């Protein structure tokens, strides 16, 4: 059984560009959460998707948006990239309101 997978592994963009990151949850998991982890910091909650709807949102601007598909996979979109958006973006899935299974992350560098 594959765990949570994310693509791409690494990504380099320039300021002002847009980026889409992808996540496939662990089999049987219907809830997907996205986190941003800056260097030396803990992960920070961006938003959570359940039944193709954004169910919870952290303190992130509207430039951050997402989507969940019927097969529970999810995308994170970031528009108008800023240098400060450089971070490790983590996707986590969970079957219930308990432990979360994290993917390996996508390392985004904004130049």
């Amino acid at each position, binding site marked *: 059984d594959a765990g949570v997978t994310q693509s791409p592994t690494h990504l380099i963009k320039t300021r002002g560009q847009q980026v889409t990151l992808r996540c496939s949850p662990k089999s049987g998991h219907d*809830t997907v*959460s996205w986190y941003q982890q800056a260097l030396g910091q*803990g992960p920070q*909650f961006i938003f959570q998707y359940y039944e193709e709807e954004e169910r*919870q949102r*952290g303190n992130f601007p509207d430039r951050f948006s997402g989507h969940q598909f019927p097969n529970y996979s999810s995308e994170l979109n970031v528009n108008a990239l800023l240098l400060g958006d450089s971070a490790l973006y983590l996707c*986590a899935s969970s079957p219930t309101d308990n432990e979360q299974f994290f*993917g390996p992350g996508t390392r985004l560098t904004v130049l």
Partner: protein
Amino acid sequence: SQKIEQNSEALNIQEGKTATLTCNYTNYSPAYLQWYRQDPGRGPVFLLLIRENEKEKRKERLKVTFDTTLKQSLFHITASQPADSATYLCALETGGYSTLTFGKGTMLLVSP
């Protein structure tokens, strides 16, 4: 303001000793608290969950305590091994639907 604080300095211990990591929080009332392990360049891996009505939880060499009065959790690794070297993250359930707020993490280094 709301804060989650973990030991800011790296913790260096010798193999075989017990490592104790601290997580303190203010202005939260979490239903549960979790501990994760994170290796460089990888996603966090779940270790233990302890609920607000539980005082202690154990799993193999790991032990977690949760004091909701002190607003503190302690994470212990007994008989530590070099393979335990990693960053350990404390996370509080804050906002329902299992959304988590993480501390910055504590780096643990176990020397042979």
